[in-house]
């Protein structure tokens, strides 16, 4: 038993158990009503604005984002909100204003559907593989393991298994409907628990007056001390929003274009508020350390949960843990569903069983969800530095899909199959080669790998995280090369 486990009361545990039972009940209730693959995968295209807001906001907020943002604000202050989060809001705004209309013009069910429509099966499978890798919800499963370890005293591996089992159970039964409906409950629980926790946490450290008077001025410097180069890299990583599979699935599942556009615009307001709340809790934790309310060697990623657990009374702690669990489970179920869809709908069906019936597709996708869980758990147990895995996964997705998908949707004229295939393979190939070279030839520094290149008495540090700077132009080169080769037209843009 650790200190946190001992600080929880029976009432707190009861609240968490009631919450978990409720999520499973929703899955069972929905399971009887889901009969077709379209209903299972894109909710029969019936999702309305409030449902879309809830599922978009809660899916994006896994434990990685929640703990990651508070970790940055705990160490550096409001820069967490200004520099790290804002490029994503801009990307979401562009998606809402520009991308949604184009996507709703076609009856697609998934991101690789777009690739096949414009470029053919080869590009579909390449993009589906990159998408599958990205969709594995490794970070959230690890987060749940850590949470169950802290709160229930389980080993982290037992925690992974417990959290993943519950999430997969109701996703398996009801697909996107179970996912979206549980997301709605999870969204409310997440937001309310944060709104309740902030005043308690601020009160315990003496409010803003104490924080402003005693914390280092850097905590309230909007851009902190980050360089323009790093800021540029952050803007680049936000491009992943333009090809985010979960976002695409919700756009395809929306009732109409207007519903999803409104959901995205209102969602940005809620994301910004949630980000700010998490940022403030990280800063409050830093103040609590200065006042010796929390240990001086407190790890940044534990800042949020620790400040809240010393601030909240019995009962509300359980409510808060349910909120944190909500953040994790809403992400795990969404991405497990997408991973299963990638395996069966996007890869297995077009390659091996083109004439699969709807019932078989539904049955096999459920099997695919369980199959996706296996590599996910294996990676979760195997990797030590899991943040690196996330950077790698999102880089692979963006490098492989951004250029061909954006060109398919927005470039005038007819697309050729080789444009998509070469573009996606060039992007994927460069990221894999870059990572392999850096890992073999580079030196280890600041939890990453770097190579220093010297040319004409100048030297440049090439960090592993810079792979996207090279992969996107290389993917564009593949696209241009594909256009120059002998044409094989697929369909209209």
């Amino acid at each position, binding site marked *: 038993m650790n200190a946190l486990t001992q600080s929880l009361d029976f009432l707190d545990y009861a609240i968490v158990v009631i919450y978990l039972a409720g999520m499973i009940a929703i899955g069972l209730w929905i399971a009887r009503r889901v*009969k077709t693959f379209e209903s299972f995968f894109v909710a*029969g295209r019936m999702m309305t604005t409030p449902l879309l807001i809830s599922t978009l906001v809660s899916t994006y907020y896994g434990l990685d984002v929640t703990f990651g943002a508070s970790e940055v604000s705990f160490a550096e202050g409001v820069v967490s909100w200004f520099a790290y989060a804002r490029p994503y809001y801009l990307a979401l705004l562009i998606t809402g204003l520009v991308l949604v209309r184009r996507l709703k013009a076609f009856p697609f069910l998934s991101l690789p559907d777009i690739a096949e429509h414009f470029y053919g099966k080869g590009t579909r499978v390449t993009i589906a593989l990159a998408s599958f890798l990205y969709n594995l919800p490794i970070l959230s499963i690890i987060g749940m393991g850590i949470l169950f370890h802290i709160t229930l005293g389980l080993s982290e591996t037992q925690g992974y298994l417990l959290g993943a089992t519950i999430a997969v159970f109701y996703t398996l039964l009801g697909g996107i409907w179970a996912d979206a409906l549980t997301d709605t409950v999870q969204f409310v629980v997440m937001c309310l628990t944060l709104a309740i926790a902030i005043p308690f946490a601020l009160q315990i450290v003496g409010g803003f007056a104490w924080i402003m008077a005693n914390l280092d001025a850097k905590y309230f410097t909007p851009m902190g001390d980050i360089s323009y180069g790093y800021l540029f890299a952050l803007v680049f990583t936000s491009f992943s929003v333009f090809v985010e599979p979960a976002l695409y699935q919700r756009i395809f599942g929306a009732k109409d274009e207007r519903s999803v556009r409104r959901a995205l615009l209102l969602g940005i307001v809620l994301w910004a508020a949630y980000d700010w709340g998490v940022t403030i809790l990280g800063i409050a934790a830093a103040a609590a350390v200065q006042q010796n309310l929390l240990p001086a060697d407190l790890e940044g990623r534990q800042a949020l949960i620790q400040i809240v657990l010393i601030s909240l009374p019995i009962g509300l702690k359980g409510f808060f843990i349910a909120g944190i669990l909500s953040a994790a489970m809403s992400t795990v179920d969404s991405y497990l569903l997408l991973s299963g869809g990638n395996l069966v709908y996007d890869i297995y069906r077009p390659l091996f069983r083109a004439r699969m019936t709807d019932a078989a597709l539904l049955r096999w996708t459920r099997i695919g969800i369980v199959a996706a869980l296996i590599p996910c758990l294996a990676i979760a147990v195997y990797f030590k530095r899991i943040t690196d895995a996330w950077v790698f996964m999102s880089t692979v997705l963006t490098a492989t899909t951004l250029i061909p998908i954006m060109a398919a949707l927005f470039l005038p004229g007819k697309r050729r199959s080789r444009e998509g295939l070469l573009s996606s393979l060039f992007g994927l190939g460069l990221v894999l080669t870059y990572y392999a070279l850096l890992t073999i030839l580079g030196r280890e520094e600041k939890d990453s790998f770097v190579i220093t290149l010297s040319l004409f008495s100048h030297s440049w540090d090439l960090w592993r995280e810079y792979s996207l700077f090279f992969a996107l132009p290389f993917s564009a080169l593949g696209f241009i090369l594909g256009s120059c080769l002998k044409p094989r037209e697929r369909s209209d843009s």
Partner: protein
Amino acid sequence: MTLWEIGTYLALIILGPGALAVFIFFLRDARKIIRQMERDEE
């Protein structure tokens, strides 16, 4: 009152009453969606 405090109060309003409002609108839609699903089932 500083801008940071104003921002925090605003965030509290959005996360509390704002999220509840979204949920209430969802409940209104949920009835329609369930009816539609039941019709599809028949």
